[in-house]
């Protein structure tokens, strides 16, 4: 086991180099660079869109005149020393920009993922147990309807009807916190944030129930039809025990695969939700960086999520072994 873990951890390094190299190549090879974007934005060019010679000068400032591989090597060398460089948009260290956005995104995602799991998995189990019942059919119809509603539309509707000046006025119009004139108490602050998070969390969660619920339903159904479940029932065990001790635990294994995506998922923001609710999170940061070819920011976010993905995969492989002792890790590499 130890040998396996060490091997896997060592494998992470070349993988990271591969991933970041490809990311870097893509950004550099994509047409347009940061300097040319100074000409204007959103379909309107500024007068005197900068002559070529001056742009060339400026490209040198950002090292864009160097060969791509040298640029990558420079980046990698700094990255190893945990120096992410400075963002081209505001000249601040990239680490600082990520530090600003990360807590916001983390809070939102942890709450969302918790709610999605807490609701979807029991729903899936119940649907599987009551297969083809009215509840099973009805809930799956409802979940799929939710799944197919576009979040930008729902988000705006929620704001319009629950926090507008014209209809109900229950929730705030975006943001994460009220603008306090004096520093609030701890509880008041927590409640205030919670109050601000209600609508964004609804918008983020409603579409995700369908997948997880259907997934856990399918897994459980597969297990329920196994012979050992019949055996368990034949032994005279209660239905509760059959489902939760014998069936559910075995249906967990495919769910573990999903966990691999959980860790990077925590970091991934939603551009749409962050935009509608004016929440300055990682999603918007990454999106803007890509549009403006802000290479240091793109590379930092890209490599962090690559590392998290790899760790996620490693963890889920290890959890397999715990959930299913038949799996032998040593032979897996």
């Amino acid at each position: 086991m130890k040998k396996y873990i060490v091997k896997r951890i060592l494998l992470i390094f070349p993988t990271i180099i591969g991933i970041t190299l490809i990311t870097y190549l893509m950004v550099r090879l994509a047409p347009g660079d940061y300097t040319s974007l100074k000409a204007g934005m959103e379909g309107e060019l500024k007068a005197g869109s900068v002559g070529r010679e001056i742009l060339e000068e400026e490209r040198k400032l950002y090292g864009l005149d160097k060969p791509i591989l040298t640029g990558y090597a420079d980046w990698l060398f700094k990255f190893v020393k945990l120096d992410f460089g400075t963002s081209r948009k505001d000249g601040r260290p990239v680490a600082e920009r990520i530090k600003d956005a990360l807590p916001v995104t983390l809070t939102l995602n942890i709450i969302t993922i918790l709610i999605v799991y807490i609701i979807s998995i029991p729903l899936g189990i119940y649907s599987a147990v009551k297969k083809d019942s009215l509840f099973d059919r009805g809930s799956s119809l409802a979940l799929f309807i939710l799944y197919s509603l576009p979040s930008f539309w729902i988000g705006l509707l929620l704001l319009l009807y629950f926090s507008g000046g014209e209809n109900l006025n229950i929730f705030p119009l975006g943001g994460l916190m009220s603008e306090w004139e004096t520093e609030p108490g701890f509880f008041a602050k927590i409640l205030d944030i919670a109050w601000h998070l209600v609508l964004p969390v609804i918008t983020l969660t409603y579409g995700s129930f369908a997948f997880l619920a259907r997934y856990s339903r399918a897994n459980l159904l597969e297990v329920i039809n196994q012979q050992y479940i019949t055996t368990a029932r034949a032994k005279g065990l209660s239905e509760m025990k059959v489902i939760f001790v014998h069936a559910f635990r075995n249906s967990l294994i495919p769910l573990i695969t999903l966990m691999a995506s959980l860790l990077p998922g925590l970091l991934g923001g939603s551009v749409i939700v962050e935009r509608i609710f004016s929440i300055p999170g990682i999603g918007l940061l990454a999106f803007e960086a890509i549009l403006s070819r802000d290479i240091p920011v793109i590379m930092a976010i890209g490599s962090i999520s690559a590392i998290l993905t790899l760790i996620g995969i490693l963890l889920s492989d290890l959890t397999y072994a715990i959930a299913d002792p038949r799996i032998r890790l040593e032979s897996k590499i």
Partner: protein
Amino acid sequence: MSKKSYHTILAAALFFFITGLSGGYSRIHPSTLVEHLSAEPGTLNPMTATDAYEGMINGHIYEALVERDRDTLEMIPRLAERWTISPDKMRFRFFLKKGVRWSDGPEFTADDIIYSFRVLKDPKTANSHVKVYYLDVQSVEKIDRYTVEFLYSRPYYLALEFCGGMPVVPKHIFDDGTDFNTHKNNRLPIGTGPFKFQKWETGKRIILEANENYWGRKPGIKKIIYKIVMEQNVALQMLKKGELDVVALREIQWVRQTGSPKFTENFYKLKYYQPNFRYIGWNAKRPFFSDSRVRLALGHLINRKAILDKLMFGLGEMVTGNFYIFSKYYNKNVKQVEYDPEKGKRLLSEAGWRDTDNDGILDRDGRKFSFTFMIPSGTEFSERLASILKEDFSKVGIEMDIRKYEWAVFVNKLHNREFDAVTLAWGLGYSGDPYQLWHSSQAEKGSNFCNFINSEADDIMDKARVEFDESKRVKLYHRFHEIIYDEQPYTFLFAKPTLAAISKRFDNVKVHVTGLNIDEWIVRLEK
């Protein structure tokens, strides 16, 4: 847990929740203005900033030597008390106001100007978009503590505007040996203006407060909060709810969502034009568009009035040339290219484009009239315009393919001249020198990407640049406007207005030619 303690906790939670809510509603002070920002600026350094948002904010913090009168568009003194121009129009001497202080204390002097010019020209400073305007400034000299002189390498009628409008940054703050592009004060600006910087909550808001030591007239507003709200629909909701005082409106919001009596009772709706125009550019290097008759014909095929009404709710002015519609240079005698498909067809056939093989598509010398129309993605107007054009052109036998590109790619293609036709807008200056757009010298690498080359136009632009007599320049530019009309390098579309909704909490909200001036607003007393 006992039932009783459970209840106590519940009650406590409820209590905190309610106090939380009411606390959150802490009222904004009446003399505070909350303005909408639809995106966050990168930096607040006027020397390197590139976005429009920076200008909105820094306009209150930083000042330049001269400024433009908001109504007459003439240059008037700001940090300079007065100026003199040498007879050869090469030397511009500015006499600075005495006793002007940076908001952190030290006096503003000639050294700040000298330093600002030095960083502006420094190749290490990431400001190519600013440098391009100062290529002809040879040097800036300090005459004494309150006098500076700019030396031009050749005369230029906009020289006063450029050297007087140069961004001025405090030497005592920035000249500390650290990197200018990433200097900490790029996000903590210190200026001489009526407001000073207070706080920047990244991604949320930027707060300015009145500069108590301001040398000029102090504004009625004591605090400005720029609130970052990216979604336009949400911003309008916030305005209605009283969380914002100033919001820029989209056309559809202006027409459909702000018409109720309740709205007009509480908000001003204001409209003004900044110098910009939208157009369709025809790449004259392509065989289809090298003939001015074809370009004019295409203009006749486009129903601009209908497009204006349909896509912009009629909010805009049809233009015939590149000059700012409210400036003297705009030649009002130039007629609009009217919508006349028959005339268009006739012109096309005169130019040799006929359907000889009866396949429904015009051709000339065996070549079909089939081109691509490049638009930037994400701009609704361009997308809808493109589909209207596609349909209208197909009726007369012209095949048009729509190519949509992300902005960075789009700009790149424009720079490399890899397009047939394109739709875009230009944001211009008020005294619009057309040189960059249309001079033949700019066709290779500059902004003349449609390859417009006309010797008379070149001649006029060269002459106008050194013509300091305004009335003569007006004559030259009126003639230029006619040439542009005859040649039709672009099909000119519209000037787009800026639309704003502003809370009636404020008085003296005037619309100047150049727009609004928050500094003169008065806070209305509570009833």
